[in-house]
């Protein structure tokens, strides 16, 4: 009796959740990510890792390859004469995972849902003013004003996934646990917060995936991701901590892939609040910041010190080859004296509760102390940061802007500095009519050279006005087994592993 009880306890402890059958190596590609996935609904979150997983289940009308937009669920498209209507011709015979054939209705339904009530991605979807079904294989998407390549490019992001109307309606609010898309993989099992197991979809409309299974596993601790990569239980990991880079490099079976990202780390200054309303103070801070120092210490060199307002990888930034921004504490002191602060001043400094921000802040604190500015770090937990940074009298803060759907300046810089975003994402209360006008013009223009020239003017103004002090753009650092091929690691936070295979 007692023995039985003990056996029962052991059975319960070891077998409560189903043990995954061992998957053959080579058949399964396992990706180690750093966030727990709980729901797979593209419209309820802006979380990049959720969208990363979704990119394998769902597909969008267009795909992005490098800098160009390529056909995916749409065979072809054209920008109509009003410059704000895109007519898409859908690919025929595309099947969803539940066997349904994709139609224009699904497309219309998906976009309406993306911009409808309760959607959390409205920052991206709200530019869409209208979706129209022309016939079963033709759909027109309209924006309120001409957005040229900015909008088209954003359609490659998983927020614009085409969902199966029937499946969404039948599962209702629980759709996130039973997603149905047209992608190369379909969901086999979602262990919330732990792993997402996908399997190859054999009715895929184009080249099928080479691996049978694709699994995303969550490791909160960066150290654990590296350990699991070394032990071979995962094939790729994201966000390799800088300290582990050399270890992975030294391992003959592993390699590091570092891709410059468009995540823009910056100090945000409140232009409504003294002394930051004084341009000389802002310029002094800009000179007092030791960017290479931060890059070295916090990112172990795996970051690019800022050369302009946005990371140089952002489209139309065009200052890839400019020199580094100067680090000159003496000149900074002089500027401060000119601004009326010969002995510096004291200020609060808002830091979101995350280790990279805290580490950067620690260095900034020390940098600015050198020129007489005494920062008192005020850690704000992430859930509270957006709220705090909206307040009109907020202190300077450190933050990054890193999750736009494309690297187009329309998403990479507009939200930060356009005056219409004051109170939302323009946390500097920066309002410059000239910049506003340039940004409006820039997004509508289709000619590349003209566009570049317009944005050049924006960068020049910002380099003087300095509503935010740009710091750096880190690299996305992946660790992978050398035998994994076919994956193009992305500058955005979303990397597509669907073409991966083992050699």
């Amino acid at each position: 009796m007692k023995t039985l009880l003990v056996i029962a306890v052991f059975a319960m402890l070891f077998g409560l959740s189903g043990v995954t059958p061992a998957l053959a190596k080579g058949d399964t590609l396992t990706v180690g990510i750093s966030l727990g996935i709980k729901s797979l609904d593209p419209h309820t979150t802006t979380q990049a890792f959720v969208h990363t997983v979704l990119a394998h289940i769902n597909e969008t009308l267009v795909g992005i390859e490098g800098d160009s937009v390529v056909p995916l669920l749409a065979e072809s498209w054209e920008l109509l004469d009003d410059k704000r209507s895109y007519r898409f011709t859908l690919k025929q015979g595309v099947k969803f995972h539940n066997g349904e054939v994709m139609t224009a209705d699904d497309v219309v339904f998906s976009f309406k849902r993306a911009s409808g009530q309760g959607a959390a991605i409205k920052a991206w979807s709200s530019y869409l003013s209208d979706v129209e079904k022309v016939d079963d294989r033709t759909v027109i998407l309209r924006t309120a004003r001409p957005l040229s390549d900015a909008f088209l490019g954003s359609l490659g992001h998983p927020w614009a996934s085409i969902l199966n109307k029937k499946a969404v309606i039948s599962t209702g609010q629980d759709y996130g646990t039973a997603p149905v898309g047209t992608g190369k993989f379909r969901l086999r099992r979602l262990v919330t917060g732990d792993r997402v197991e996908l399997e190859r979809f054999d009715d895929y409309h184009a080249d099928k995936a080479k691996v049978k299974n694709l699994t995303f596993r969550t490791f909160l601790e960066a150290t654990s991701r590296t350990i699991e990569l070394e032990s071979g239980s995962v094939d790729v990991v994201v966000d390799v901590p800088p300290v582990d880079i050399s270890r992975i490099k030294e391992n003959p079976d592993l390699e590091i892939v570092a891709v410059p990202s468009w995540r823009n780390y910056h100090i945000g200054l409140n232009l409504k609040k003294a002394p930051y309303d004084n341009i000389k103070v802002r310029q002094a801070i800009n000179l007092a910041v030791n960017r290479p120092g931060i890059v070295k210490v916090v990112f172990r060199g795996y970051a690019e010190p800022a050369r302009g307002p946005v990371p140089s990888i952002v489209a139309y930034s065009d200052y890839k080859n400019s020199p580094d921004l100067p680090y000159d504490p003496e000149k900074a002191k002089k500027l401060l004296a000119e601004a009326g602060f010969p002995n510096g001043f004291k200020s609060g400094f808002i830091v979101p509760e995350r280790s990279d921000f805290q580490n950067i802040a620690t260095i900034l604190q020390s940098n600015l102390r050198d020129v007489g500015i005494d920062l008192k770090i005020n850690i704000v937990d992430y859930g509270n940061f957006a709220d705090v940074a909206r307040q009109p009298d907020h202190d300077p803060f450190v933050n990054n802007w890193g999750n736009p759907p494309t690297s187009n300046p329309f998403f990479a810089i507009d939200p930060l500095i356009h005056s219409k975003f004051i109170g939302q994402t323009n946390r500097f209360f920066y309002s410059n009519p000239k910049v506003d006008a340039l940004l409006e013009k820039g997004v509508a223009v289709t000619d590349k050279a003209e566009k570049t020239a317009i944005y050049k003017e924006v960068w020049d103004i910002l380099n003087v006005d300095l509503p935010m002090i740009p710091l750096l753009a880190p690299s996305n650092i992946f660790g992978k087994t050398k035998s994994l091929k076919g994956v193009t690691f992305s500058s955005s936070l979303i990397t597509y592993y669907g073409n991966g295979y083992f050699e």
Partner: protein
Amino acid sequence: MVRFCLRRLLTLIPVTLGVTFLLFSLLYMTPGDPALLVLGPEATEDALREFRREHGLDQPFLVRYGRFVYNAVVHQDVGRSYITHRTVASEIADAFPVTLTLSIGAIFFATLMGMIFGIICAVKQYSIFDNVAMVFAMLGIATPVFYLGILLILLFSVHLHWLPSSGFDTPAQRILPWIALSSVSLSIITRMTRSSMLEVIRSDYIRTARAKGQKETVIIVKHALRNALIPIITIIGIQFGHLLGGSILAESVFSIPGVGRLAVDAIKSRDYPVVQGAVIYLALAYVLINLLVDILYTWIDPRLRTRYR
């Protein structure tokens, strides 16, 4: 006995109400706007307002609380996550068994080993085993769980390659979290068993049993242990309660998707319904454990039986 249990189960009602009220107040005071967090900083004022209205966040405190209680009692519905839109019940259903397995495993391990060590220490008081075990027990109490977890990973995953460093799916994955989580309880149970056994071993009825010519092992198990068990069970109950909460740390170190992490993530992302749900379940589990402990008392100690009849 049945009536006793029923009466105790009835106390769940005020406790649950109190816990939710306490949490509601705490969350109400917590800065940070859920709407802003869910919809993102880009969200327009209209969108935020709509979100707050939809989730009743624009209502006064008492209305919100009243509505929550009404829905929970009348519709057995504690709401949906702001973020995933899944029902809180289903999120808990995913996470709670994991935490339960984690903490039951840990308390089981701590109890088994703690009692064995404690008994040996008591029987061989002042022996080398006793001294070494007591030093380790002290270390166990003094080591932060997350630090021990990191050290275990370092030893067993990195250097020895014996066990995986994270997850909770396979038996191998469960061993390190169990050990890390149980260390404090193991130490406390060992110390408690030792002292309780020492006290009992010196008592007259143990001498009576010896005077009968009973075997020493039988004396320890049949006579001493059962009498020493009351304070040990109390400690185990308390420890189990601590483990349910403390599992958060093991869940973080080993990336285990349990209810503690669910609650902490939800607090950080202001996902109020999920915080409520997670904490209510943990509190219920705590109350039930206490009930179980009380029932165990009466099973072990006949003197208490009459009291609960």
